[in-house]
C-alpha cells in the first residue's frame, strides 16, 4: 500500500491510496487541449484552474525569514504545480476513503483519516 513499495501499510479502514501522480495528467487530458509553448504551463494553470504564480509567490514570501530571499520563475511554476498536486491528492484520497465507506459525500472525517499519510508523502 502507498505510493511506493517502501511506505508501510497503515490500518486505516478500507484505505485505498493513489499509486502514482501521472493520473493527474490523465485527468487533465480529458479537458480541452491547452495552448502550446512556455505559456502553456501558466495558461493551463488558468484555464484548468490551479494556483497562480503571484499567489504562490506571496504565500511563500509570507514565511521567509530573510527579506532578500527570492524565487525564480521556474521554481514558482513548479511550486504551483506541487500545490495543485497536493490539493488534488488530498481531495482524491478523501474521495476514495468516502467511496470505500460506500458514501457519496466526502466529509471532514474522511480527510482526517487520509491526512497522516498525505503529510508523510509531502
Amino acid at each position, binding site marked *: 500500500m502507498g505510493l511506493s513499495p517502501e511506505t508501510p501499510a497503515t490500518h486505516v479502514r478500507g484505505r485505498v491510496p493513489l499509486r502514482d501522480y501521472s493520473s493527474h495528467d490523465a485527468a487533465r487530458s480529458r479537458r480541452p487541449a491547452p495552448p502550446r*509553448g512556455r505559456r502553456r504551463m501558466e495558461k493551463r494553470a488558468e484555464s484548468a484552474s490551479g494556483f497562480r504564480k503571484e*499567489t504562490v509567490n506571496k*504565500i511563500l514570501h509570507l514565511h*521567509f525569514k530573510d527579506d532578500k530571499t527570492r524565487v525564480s520563475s521556474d*521554481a514558482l511554476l513548479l511550486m504551483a504545480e506541487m500545490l495543485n498536486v497536493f490539493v488534488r491528492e488530498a481531495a482524491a484520497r*478523501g474521495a476514495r476513503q468516502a467511496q470505500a465507506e460506500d458514501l457519496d*459525500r466526502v466529509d471532514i472525517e474522511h480527510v482526517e483519516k487520509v491526512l497522516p499519510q498525505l503529510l508523510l508523502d*509531502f
Partner: protein
Amino acid sequence: MEPEGERERERERLLHTQRLKAAVHYTVGCLCQEVAEDKGIQFSKQTIAAISEITFRQCENFAKDLEMFARHGKRTVINSEDVKLLARRSNSLLRYITQKSEELALNNLEQKERKKKKSSAAKGRRTSDEQVEAAMAESEDSNMA
C-alpha cells in the same frame, strides 16, 4: 517604539494573510470541483475549508524548507533544484516534478530560439530600412537642388 505603529502593521499583516487564505480557498474550491466531477462525488463545504487550511499551513513548511535549501547552496534565489529536493519524500511525486521541470527547461530553450530568430530578423529589416532612408534623403536633396 510606537505601540500604535506596531498594532497597525500587525493588523495589515493579518489582513494580508486573510486575503491570501481566501485566494487559496477559492483555488482549492476549483480544484476540488474538478476532482468531484471526475469521480462523481460531492465535497462538503467543511471538507474544502479543511483542505484549504491544510494547504495553507503546508505552505509554511515548504517556504521555510525552500529558503533553507537555497541558503545551504549559498544562494538567495530559490531555483528548480530546491523544489525538486522538496519533493523527495515520494518517488512518484519526485518523478512528476522532475518531468515538469524538464518540460519547463525545454520551453525556456524554445523561447530563447524564438527570441534569437526575432532579433536577427529585426536586425535584417533595420539595415534595409536604413538603406531606403539614405536613398530617399539623396533623392530629396537632388529634388531641392
